[in-house]
């Protein structure tokens, strides 16, 4: 079975994007590190949006109750997705550590 068919680029695959420059999200061919960094940035952005919505609601701004709850929900779901990815990475790392040489 060809694992690369699943869609995740193989770790360490040469990246066509210039090093240092953030790959365009639509290119779909970033390195594993870039993908991870992008998704982390997205999680962080959603957390900040939720923070902003809570602040807006508490200070009597224009935010509504349900918009705030939805922002919190989105932040929580993306955070949990990130945690699952992190768990998988740690699992794989420990699997490699246990390898007999």
């Amino acid at each position, binding site marked *: 079975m060809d694992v690369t068919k699943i869609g995740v680029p193989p770790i360490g695959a040469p990246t066509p994007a210039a090093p240092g420059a953030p790959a365009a999200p*639509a290119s779909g061919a970033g390195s594993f590190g870039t993908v991870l960094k992008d998704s982390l940035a*997205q999680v962080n952005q959603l957390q900040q949006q939720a923070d902003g919505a809570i602040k807006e609601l508490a200070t009597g701004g224009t935010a*509504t109750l*349900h*918009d705030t709850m*939805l922002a919190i929900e989105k932040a929580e*779901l*993306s955070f949990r*997705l990130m945690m699952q990815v992190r768990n*998988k990475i740690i699992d794989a790392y420990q699997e490699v550590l246990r390898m007999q040489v």
Partner: protein
Amino acid sequence: MDVTGTLSISGSALSAERLRLDVIASNLANASTTRTPEGGPYRRRNVVFAPEAMDSDFASTLAALGPQGAREGVSVQKVVEDQSPFRMVYDPGHPDADKDGYVAYPNVNPVAESVDLMAATRAYEANVQVVNATRRMAEAALGIGG
């Protein structure tokens, strides 16, 4: 992310139902208002909903290519005034009475407004259920392989 799109659709519906609630509250609050800045009594107001495409930025529009129209939120297109006749009440002592002693009261029916209020509340709850279902599906997806 796909889940956040679903949540945005439900969010637009929640906002629309909230605005509908505001309009019903205005109607009930002004059920006996006989003078307005435009002249004449208050006219009952109603909301008009319209579908609204949720993919605002180009990248997500491209990503969602294929099943067109599957992601439509809702927005309040406009607030219209009910043109039905006013309720005429005989009250010669009222400052807004006409020459025959009749006062035009708003065309607001509190019973009908109460029913609209229940409909708006139920619609809001239904959309909250959609949000909860989305959450449960996302949690199930996160549980894959775990």
